[in-house]
């Protein structure tokens, strides 16, 4: 309908240029109308289970009710990669969205593509500037460069450990005690496997979709960070990283507690729900979907540790795109502020399992009583204290893909962890060199 309206407007504009006074009058009325309402387009992804598009549509409708002068066209565009593609192709087609929710780690690439602007350019009042600092600092790590804020946290997560209490009990383990360390996790997983007579796996860590993300958690637990803050260097073949991958591989090979080969990101939740595994590592964004569908008692814990606890943050941020008018930018800011306000962040967290993105969200009545009634809802937030920025570099796609391949090559026994990570390091270095040249 919008498209048709603008077509009519265009043809009216042409005719009025030809001198038809009456039509020019009509045009004026038309453009008045257009000014009365600022139209925004945004793309957003869904990477976890549940009917999240309905939730977003509901939020947008509510926002439009409260702000009749702004209309938001929220377009679901698939997973994070698909959404970035949709947004970037829209830009190339000259139909740039004013804002979008994209992968928090797309920041470097979006800058490289000259696609986004900093929120600092749009905020005006002191209140708005304070809003920029109202989020958990851990979540801002992937959104800030050189003191400029480019990404506002929205659907943010950490990796958490889901465990099946019934399965623990059946294996003679304490159902209320999740594994604290790497060794404990391997032992408990093997115990479940044995007690079930091979019917049930001990633990599953997904290795498709976002293998680098899971690997980053292992590496960080071993005290190792995979990249520098500037996004120009990676350290994949460090001994700690190799040890981390060796541990991951050992879960299947040595402890026989995890299936061989890669484990699919998209079907893992279903595996857990059908009790074919006693533990899974997954985004906290799945929490509400698991809660709604689980027919057994389950718990959620922080990931186990080696040298330290740790999980990378993950998920999507709001970005502002280049090329929109000042009016549109402010409308977009209004919308983003509304969407990330404590009450909404709380509601969103309850609906999905994603984190409330600001401390204030956890102070709301709604989230406080939810956490009281359902303590797993606070695990992701508590884990923030031990979180690290998600792997983000220039040439991010290629660098992540190199690491993904290494993880998969090791898990499927094609290469040793050391070989695989050395190769990934070489590939990432080559990609970053190419970037350094084009810069």
């Amino acid at each position, binding site marked *: 309908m919008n498209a048709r309206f603008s077509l009519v407007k265009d043809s009216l504009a042409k005719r009025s240029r030809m001198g038809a006074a009456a039509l020019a009058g009509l045009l004026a009325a038309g453009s008045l109308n257009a000014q009365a309402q600022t139209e925004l387009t945004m793309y957003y992804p869904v990477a976890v289970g549940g009917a999240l598009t309905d939730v977003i549509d509901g939020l947008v409708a509510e926002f439009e009710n409260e702000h009749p002068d702004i209309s938001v066209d929220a377009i679901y565009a698939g997973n994070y990669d698909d959404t970035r593609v949709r947004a970037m192709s829209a830009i190339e087609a000259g139909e740039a969205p004013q804002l979008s929710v994209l992968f928090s780690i797309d920041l470097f690439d979006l800058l490289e593509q000259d696609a986004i602007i900093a929120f600092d350019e749009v905020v005006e009042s002191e209140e708005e500037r304070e809003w920029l600092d109202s989020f958990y600092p851990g979540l801002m790590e992937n959104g800030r460069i050189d003191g400029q804020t480019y990404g506002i946290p929205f659907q943010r997560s950490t990796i958490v450990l889901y465990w099946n209490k019934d399965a623990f009990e059946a294996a003679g383990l304490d159902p209320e005690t999740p594994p604290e360390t790497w060794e404990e996790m391997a032992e408990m997983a093997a115990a479940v496997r044995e007690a079930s007579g091979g019917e049930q796996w001990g633990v599953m860590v997904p290795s498709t979709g976002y293998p680098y993300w899971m690997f980053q958690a292992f590496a960080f637990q071993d005290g190792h960070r995979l990249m520098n803050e500037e996004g120009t260097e990676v350290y994949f073949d460090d001994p700690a990283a190799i040890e981390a991958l060796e541990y991951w591989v050992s879960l299947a090979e040595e402890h026989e507690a995890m299936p061989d080969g890669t484990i699919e990101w998209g079907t893992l939740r279903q595996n857990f729900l059908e009790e074919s595994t006693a533990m899974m590592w997954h985004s906290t964004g799945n929490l509400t979907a698991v809660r709604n569908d689980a027919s057994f008692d389950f718990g959620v814990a922080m990931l186990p540790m080696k040298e330290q606890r740790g999980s990378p943050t993950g998920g999507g941020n709001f970005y502002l795109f280049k090329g929109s008018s000042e009016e549109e930018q402010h409308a977009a800011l209004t919308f983003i502020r509304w969407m990330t306000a404590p009450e909404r962040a709380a509601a969103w967290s309850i609906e999905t399992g994603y984190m409330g993105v600001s401390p204030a969200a956890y102070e709301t009545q709604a989230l406080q009583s939810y956490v009281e009634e359902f303590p797993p809802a606070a695990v992701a937030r508590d884990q923030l204290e031990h979180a690290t920025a998600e792997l983000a570099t220039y*040439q991010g796609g290629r660098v992540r893909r190199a690491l993904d391949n290494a993880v998969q090559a090791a*898990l499927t026994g094609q290469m040793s962890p050391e070989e695989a990570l050395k190769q990934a390091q070489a590939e990432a270095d080559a990609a970053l060199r190419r970037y350094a040249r084009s810069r």
Partner: protein
Amino acid sequence: MVIQNADRRMQIYGALLLLPAAVLLGTFAYLPTVATLINSFFLPGFRGAPPEFVGLENYAMLVEDVTFWKVARNNLIYALGTIPTSIALALGMALFVNARLPGRGFVRMAYFTPTILPMIAAANIWMFFYAPQIGLFNKLLGALGLSGVNWLGDPGMALTSVIVMTVWKEAGFFMIFYLAALQSIPPELKEASDLEGTSRWSFFWRVTFPLLMPTTLFVLINALINAVRVVDHLFILTKGGPNNATNLLLYYVYENAFSFFDRTYAATITVVILLVLAVVATLKFTVLDRRTHYQ
């Protein structure tokens, strides 16, 4: 003089008739091809800076790119795995449902159903068929007392699994063409050969199959195009993994262009694909066409 004028008028008339097709082809085929070729000589610009001319550097990178060669090899295996199988299966199914059997309409529909499913939907269904613990195939194997296979997660199995799904999807589509061709074969031929006492086997190889040759050629070209064009079900099933075991050419182009933001390298791969396809097209026009008898 008069004749010359008429000639010129005919020429203009002819050119005008060609114009719409020429404009469409130019805009959507030749222009992008030329643009792709030009792009392949550049490095992408940083932060809106103009791209830098680097000559053949992208091609040099391609030659050394291990992943590209793996992907090309995968695609060859994929083509060899899907094309003959789906054509043979399509022909077999067409012969079967062309015969007078009870419930013929139902069987035809059943064979054709996979074709009308959107690829993404089909792939989503198959992802759950293939899922190692909860999937249909492993449950069936388990019922037979066999241990399951990690269909999409084992690099030795993954490409085969993708091929199997493609064959399932394509065979029904090609069957329709064969069925139409079979029904256009005059029944007199069958009657005549029955009088001669020809066996069904030699009737098929001496009469039916040669008459189906134009259809086979058409189906072959389509299957070939599909083998290069495939990209959608990889998004759902494997994303090219594990470790590039199922990565195919077009998916690799997509990855470079949109996941890696490296449009110029994507253009380079595209140029190479175009060259290979041009060779195949030449073979088709020079060799295959001459061996095909049109009715």
